[in-house]
């Protein structure tokens, strides 16, 4: 696994020497901040209004701010995934550096893990920055921190799964723009398939909505660690990385 670490460090470095990592961090922080202060403002507004009516209703920061916020962010994340994974393999194929990786005494799985973990780390650092917002909540309010952590775990698992899918798609082409666009399409698809479950209860609809990466996030947003949902994400991670490995292998037979 020493080799995976070598690849990991190289990937992480190449994220952070180019503007892409900073751009992603900034954009994510801005969007997150917007959602956060927006729902905070609404929360305060509702609170004041109910007080003025003289019938204070029970206020819960976790339920009214954190939960919808995390749900929104889980969707926003879908738009960032392609930008993180698109160049992982496509660029190595285009520039020919894949020949260096494949002819070095390194196993394919070490290359794949190194790259995927670097992608996960970039996403994790994006999440980390958003934590700053909650500092404010903890200072002035009294939210429960356990559901928050579970929510973040869910975000990370969901991203890990989509990043694995994106990594796979990046092995399929030399063109990182194509890889990015395809990954984006798949991410959207894995989100919207959940919608059919809203109006249809037939078997096929249940299966389709089970495929939705966003549906599985609902329990995490509530702050509940549901094994079924965690297993879904972990399974998707394995599936994505497995297909990446197969694709890397077949790359040799074809090229």
């Amino acid at each position, binding site marked *: 696994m*020493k*080799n995976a670490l*070598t690849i990991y460090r*190289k990937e992480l*470095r*190449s994220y952070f*020497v*180019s503007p892409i990592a900073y751009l992603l961090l900034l954009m994510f922080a801005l969007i997150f901040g917007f959602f956060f202060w927006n729902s905070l403002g609404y929360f305060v507004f509702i609170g004041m209004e109910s007080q003025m009516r003289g019938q204070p209703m029970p206020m819960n920061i976790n339920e009214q701010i954190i939960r919808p916020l995390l749900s929104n962010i889980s969707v926003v994340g879908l738009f960032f995934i392609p930008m993180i994974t698109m160049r992982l393999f496509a660029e190595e194929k285009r*520039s*020919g*550096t*894949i*020949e*260096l*990786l*494949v*002819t*070095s*005494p*390194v*196993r394919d799985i070490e290359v794949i893990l190194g790259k995927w973990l670097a992608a996960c780390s970039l996403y994790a650092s994006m999440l980390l920055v958003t934590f700053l917002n909650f500092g404010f909540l903890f200072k002035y309010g009294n939210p429960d921190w356990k559901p928050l952590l579970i929510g973040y775990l869910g975000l990370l698992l969901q991203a890990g799964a989509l990043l694995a899918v994106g990594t796979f798609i990046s092995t399929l082409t030399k063109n990182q723009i194509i890889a990015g666009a395809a990954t984006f399409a798949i991410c959207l698809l894995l989100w919207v398939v959940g919608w059919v479950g809203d109006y249809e209860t037939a078997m096929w609809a249940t299966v389709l909505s089970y495929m939705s990466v966003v549906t599985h996030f609902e329990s995490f947003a509530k702050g509940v660690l549901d094994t079924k949902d965690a297993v879904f994400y972990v399974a998707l991670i394995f599936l994505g990385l497995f297909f990446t490995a197969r694709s890397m292998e077949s790359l*040799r*037979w074809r*090229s």
Partner: protein
Amino acid sequence: MIIVEELTKRYARNTAVDHISFRVEKGQIVGFLGPNGAGKTTTMRMLTCFMPPTSGSASIAGLDVLEHPMKVKKHIGYLPETPPLYPEMATGEYLQFVGRLKGLSGGELKKRVDYVCERCSVADVRHKLIGKLSKGYRQRVGLAQAIIHNPDVLILDEPTAGLDPKQINETRDLIKSLAGDHTILLSTHILPEVEQTCQQVIIINKGKLVATDSVQNLQNRARGAVSVLVEVASRSGPLDFSMVQKQLEQVAGVSRVLYRGSNSGFSSFEVESEKSFSRGDVARSIVNAGWDLNELRPAAISLEEVFLQLTKSEEKPPLEAAELAGVPA
């Protein structure tokens, strides 16, 4: 060091490498020569475990490329057709990364990076981004990464392609200087490169092996004979070249003597033999007859002629085409 047997690679539509076999002995520098599309890159990719052969086998340092890919990769330094460089990395950093990939670490890694930087003359751009380097420097960084782990075998795919003449010379000298420590297989479609750099040559065309021999022998073989050029002068008056011819024909092993002309008192002859003869005998016979021997050297024909003969022998260019193109008869 490299043993290739009946190696074959078929793509969906064509056969890129067709049952080729050859051997490369330890410490040699061997040219892998063929026109574009001959299958050089494909062969090298199979040797470096980049892709598996369709059939046949190859082994490096006694290890089969299919059975022990991990071990084989440790024995090989590979410079692909396009050097595998990361433009966003600095030279030193890149070499360190490759060194780690090849299994080096700690003090040893540092020592090797220092060494290859020095060896390939890239020490002065160690802290420069690879993306900012000139083509010649990039090629040398490519060579540096190939030797970072001190491999037994170096496989270089068209190492001088796309360089200017000065850079080509520098790169050739560097490759020659590496020959002492490594067994080198280098591919090229440029003939003089083989003549200047290599001891052995393997010629392929359209995926098939055409010839494999020493550069020297191959040049002779195309002639079908061994021949030397002799330049003779007379001390007293003009030289009777038919006398010289007769004299030389009597030397053991000589089959034919051709008069090549005279120039400022010197007459040139080409001495041919079916098998071989002693150049000493030729020299002695001239001197004993009372003439001056001005020059005696092997009449090397360029590998280009050999190459053309070998690769064109199967398919003769259609005459009509040449005529249609307006080539004067």
